[in-house]
């Protein structure tokens, strides 16, 4: 019953892998930022992504706004939500043992998911804005996924430029390298933390908004994204920002190739086997941790 794999099929999965990988990288970058700067593992990252998806969905369904234009609005909204979360809750666990931050963000995550269920029910929702695909050289390029890819890649690039070239970005990286030295240099570390959480939430929201155009959304959609993002930053090197990019692409490609050569059932297993291998052979991740 097995289908012979042809080069065209491999080409098609590589395309799917790259399209998915860019989204993984975008979302994981947010998680990497928070971990790098605050040493907080943010379990609520996926639920924040889900909120971004809902903001995009409601802007589209209530006002008819182009969903891709709704994504920036979702990012701003979640930036504010991120600031509020950091200001009221998360700042309390920065510098505390990692278990505290795990518990706190786990709690936030449960609250967000259940509040969303309460407010909007757990019904599936879709944005049927753009469907079908472009056929390029025998490869089917899903319109929605391709546009989402372009957005994801641009946003990730922007985030990198911000981190690399702006004063604020440099301050974030400095804080990530050494909190104490950053403080001595006159960087307001508390403010940087605030900004980082806001920024990371905005990146998650961007991922969620783009995802809402591609797949059906529901309140529990975020959980798997927390885990995948975690996988990505461990693969790439925790706290290493370019590593998130590499890890994202790698995860996208590995999943897709595994579902082609093995089965859909096994593709997730393969991703986690890869994680175990990386941890065994190169525990600091492919690009090494915390070099910014």
């Amino acid at each position: 019953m097995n289908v012979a794999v042809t080069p065209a099929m491999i080409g098609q999965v590589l395309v799917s892998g790259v399209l998915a990988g860019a989204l993984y990288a975008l979302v994981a970058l947010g998680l990497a930022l928070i971990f790098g700067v605050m040493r907080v593992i943010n379990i609520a990252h996926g639920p924040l992504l889900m909120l971004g998806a809902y903001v995009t969905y409601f802007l589209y369904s209530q006002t008819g706004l182009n969903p891709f234009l709704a994504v920036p609005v979702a990012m701003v909204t979640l930036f504010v939500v991120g600031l509020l979360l950091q200001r009221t809750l998360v700042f309390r666990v920065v510098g505390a043992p990692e278990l505290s931050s795990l518990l706190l963000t786990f709690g936030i995550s449960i609250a967000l998911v259940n509040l969303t269920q309460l407010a909007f029910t757990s019904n599936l929702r879709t944005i049927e804005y753009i469907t079908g695909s472009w056929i390029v050289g025998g490869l089917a390029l899903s319109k929605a996924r391709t546009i989402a890819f372009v957005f994801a890649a641009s946003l990730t690039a922007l985030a990198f430029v911000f981190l690399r070239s702006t004063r604020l970005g440099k301050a974030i990286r400095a804080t990530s390298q050494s909190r104490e030295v950053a403080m001595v240099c006159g960087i307001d570390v508390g403010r940087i933390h605030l900004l980082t959480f806001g920024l990371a939430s905005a990146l998650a929201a961007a991922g969620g908004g783009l995802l809402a155009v591609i797949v059906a959304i529901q309140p529990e959609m975020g959980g798997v994204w927390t885990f995948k993002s975690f996988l990505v930053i461990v693969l790439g090197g925790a706290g290493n920002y370019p590593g998130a990019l590499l890890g994202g692409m790698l995860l996208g490609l590995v999943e897709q190739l595994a579902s082609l050569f093995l089965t859909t059932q096994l593709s997730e297993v393969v991703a986690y086997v890869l994680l175990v291998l990386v941890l065994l052979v190169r525990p600091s991740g492919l690009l090494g941790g915390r070099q910014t």
Partner: protein
Amino acid sequence: MTLKMLGALGLAVTVGLTSLPAAAQGPIRIGASLSLTGTYAEPGGYQAEGYKLCERDLNTKGGLLGRKVEMVVYDDQSQPATGVRLYEKLITEDKVDAVMGPYSSAISEAVANVTEKYKKVMVAPLAATTSIFKKGRKYAFMVISPAEVYLEGLVDIAAKRKLKTIAIINEDTLFPKASAQGTEELAKKAGLQVVFKESYPKGNQDFSGLLIKLKAANPDVLAAATYFDDAVALARQMKELDVNPKMTGVTVGGDLPKFQELLKQTAEGIYGASQWEGALPYPGAKEFFDTYVKEFKHEPSYHSAAGYAGCILYGEGVKKAGTLEADKVRDALLALKTRTMFGDYQVDRDGFQTAHKMVLLQWQEGKRVVVWPDDLANGKPRFPR
């Protein structure tokens, strides 16, 4: 005075007359647990309404054995363990006269152990898994068609159109697995060649690898044993990856209005399987539909209809037996062969349903059209999708 009022008057007189002996003897109490909260709350709620309407209709027709009927319904929170506890309570503490089945295969399977232990006949109207009825149980009765035949219509239409190849995919859980297996057997029997088979994990959202292989296998027909969420994701990604078999059918999901609401144009041409439709020409189906809408202010689903029919069938068994005694009612239900508003009913020696027919729907211009079987169809299948 209008005809309607005359009818109402007649009804009132009948009720007045027949309720006299009923009051004297006390009501027949029928117990059940239903999933009123939790994961299955949606279908469980429909089933509860079906039971409620059945209670009312039985009573307006004079009750059973001259006694009024009273349903005692508890909430099992969609948990098999809670269901087991509630049936124990119903039978031993509340001492109900009879029981009806809960919602879902999983909970029916669990509580059937209790009802067997106390030798209570249980008509289980919303249990579709074959194995429940093939374990040597004596008192469990099945009403809906089993998982294995959900896509019989799809295979049948394909064979009649002389299509050659079929791909079968399924979510890797109990019901879809049984459904895929059944479809494969039906397909082989019909002379279709199975060219691709794969299962995917529960909650899967990304079908691209699977669909790329499926596209390469180039089947005429795609049979997908799904629940709702995966059916939606699959349909969307098929469109993205330009996968266009001549026929595409899904088990659960394709029958619900929500499927089309979510997918719009993408749902067009897809086949879905249903146990029942309000538009089917079964005796009393239209009346049931209309009364239901009037009573509950929304349309019934097949869960409502199956619940209603199951309860009516139990009543039928009691009437035939002339007693509530389990063994006599059991014999009556085993021998019963009838057509209700839900369709045909006949069971084999194990209480396993053999007569009820699934129907196949196709989404045509945003509407559900029954396209199979021929004698129940209200439209023709459209090709290619």
